[in-house]
């Protein structure tokens, strides 16, 4: 990793941390902020697809599909941003899908690691269970408790975790030693 990449990771971690604090301090407006973040993320994803097409996928057999995908996602981003007034559904769906998938993957990994007798399986299992709990929590917060604040706190916790991952990653040793 270059120094600039490490700095980028630290800045991105700090930004996530700032968002976490904002969400916890002001849960009233927090939900709108979260919806805005998701809408903007979609917008950036569409732009990223277009950049990907012009820098790389245009050399690829069938690469035109990336161009069309970028345009469609951009459209979707605009649509999402126009619905920021009722964001419960979007955040719940986001938390549900992302964490349920990660949870299942972690648990499968833990089972495989256990079969090999590796000690790391407990950590994977714990991570998988936590991810599944977050997904379940998102559904409970919206469907059963109708609690906007709980949903915001849940999202804030996930954001905090992502910030920590960025910090750890920024300080990780990554160079390979070459001995002739």
């Amino acid at each position, binding site marked *: 990793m270059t120094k600039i990449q490490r700095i980028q990771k630290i800045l991105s971690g700090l930004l996530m941390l700032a968002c976490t604090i904002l969400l916890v301090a002001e849960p009233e407006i927090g939900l709108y902020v979260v919806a805005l973040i998701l809408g903007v993320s979609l917008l950036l994803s569409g732009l990223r697809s277009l950049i990907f097409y012009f820098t*790389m996928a245009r050399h690829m057999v*069938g690469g035109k599909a990336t161009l069309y995908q970028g345009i469609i996602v951009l459209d979707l981003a605009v649509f999402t941003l126009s619905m920021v007034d009722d964001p419960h559904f979007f955040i719940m769906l986001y938390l549900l899908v992302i964490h349920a998938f990660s949870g299942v993957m972690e648990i*499968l990994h833990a089972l*495989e*690691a256990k079969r090999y*007798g590796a000690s790391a399986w407990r950590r994977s299992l714990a991570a998988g269970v936590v991810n599944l709990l977050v997904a379940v929590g998102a559904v409970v917060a919206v469907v059963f408790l109708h609690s906007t604040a709980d949903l915001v706190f849940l999202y804030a916790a996930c954001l905090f975790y992502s910030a920590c991952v960025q910090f750890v990653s920024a300080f990780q*040793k*990554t*160079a*390979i030693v070459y001995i002739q």
Partner: protein
Amino acid sequence: MQKDFHYYATYCAAFIAGYSHEESLDIAYSAQFVDLCSRTLLSKLKAPLSAATTQLQLELMNARTDLVGLQDITRIWASFHFLPGDLRAEGPEKSGRVYRSKYRLICKPNGDLVKDTVDLAKGGSLQAAGIAMHVLADTWAHSYFAGTPSLVINNTNNYFYELFPSDTGYQEKLVDFHHTPGSPDDLEKGIYNNSIYQGSENSIMNLGHGRAGHLPDYSFIRYKYLPAWANYEEIIKDNPHDYYYAFCQMVYALEFLRGLIPQFETGRYAIQAVSPYEEEIRQILEKRQLDACADWKALGEKLSGESVEDFDLNKYQAAYMALPENEKNKSFLGRFFLASLAQKSMVTNKIFKSGNLLAGFSVDYAENGFAGIRDFFKLIEAFAEEARHD
């Protein structure tokens, strides 16, 4: 390639090159172990995790695909399974730096890195020879795919035909790809598994030959397809031909490692040494079967007159774990881990020196001293130990 080639065929190649039965078994074991030495196994053995030569499917699904994660994946797969053919390839006109970096990791046989790999194993352990044979053989099987996640390089589309030799040339049959991991390919019906299409450039699904399923790993198959990177130019892959050359090159490389040949050169093969067995080998390679272990094993036993034991993953684990920390490098697995660290270190350095950062940073110890991942300190200790003995 699979166990049939990496274990049993490597045993045959080593024996033809003049190694003893026991030495051939050690080389073959090491060659096959490359496909099994995952971080999960290493953590169980409390061995250096950087010695990993492969990633389990679920390790991959779990792997980070940020910059650091991708570099880690690339180091493993480009060093041991998809050795780049030309680190200075030009690529398409007006392509950007990132595209070119990926393009330059496309695996092909007879590249400079094959020579570097074999040279690195020279004078080393039998485990180093085994690792080199795995890497060399895979350059033939995995040609035209890259050991880094990349949609723009590794993707394939519906234009994918199996070719059957006929009197008039080849008959074509459209390959029917399914996405049911774990279920075996159906040779009769021509149904093969492959990884599902993922539009994301760095998705794990786009690593290596996943999009072409196991076809590159079968010695009997011939097929044609449109690789993502070749600007709609069709590639015909003739595995029986390629696997035969892979075998002959292994024998040639092993003769070099034994000191029978002064220099290893790319593009040269031990055609003469293998010729007495050519017919039998070609028969095995052409036989339409998912697993050719039994046939290669029979050939190996015929060659040496000894029983070739089946590959046992647990064979050396207890011995490694029983040794105290300062003795581990002398064990079978300890030597394997040192050789794998050396191979990974060398390939990463060559990729880095070519201006390509996809495999991460490489710090030259001779110039800058030790910095970076601590596991590699084992290499310095091993070299120091070797120097003391010399």
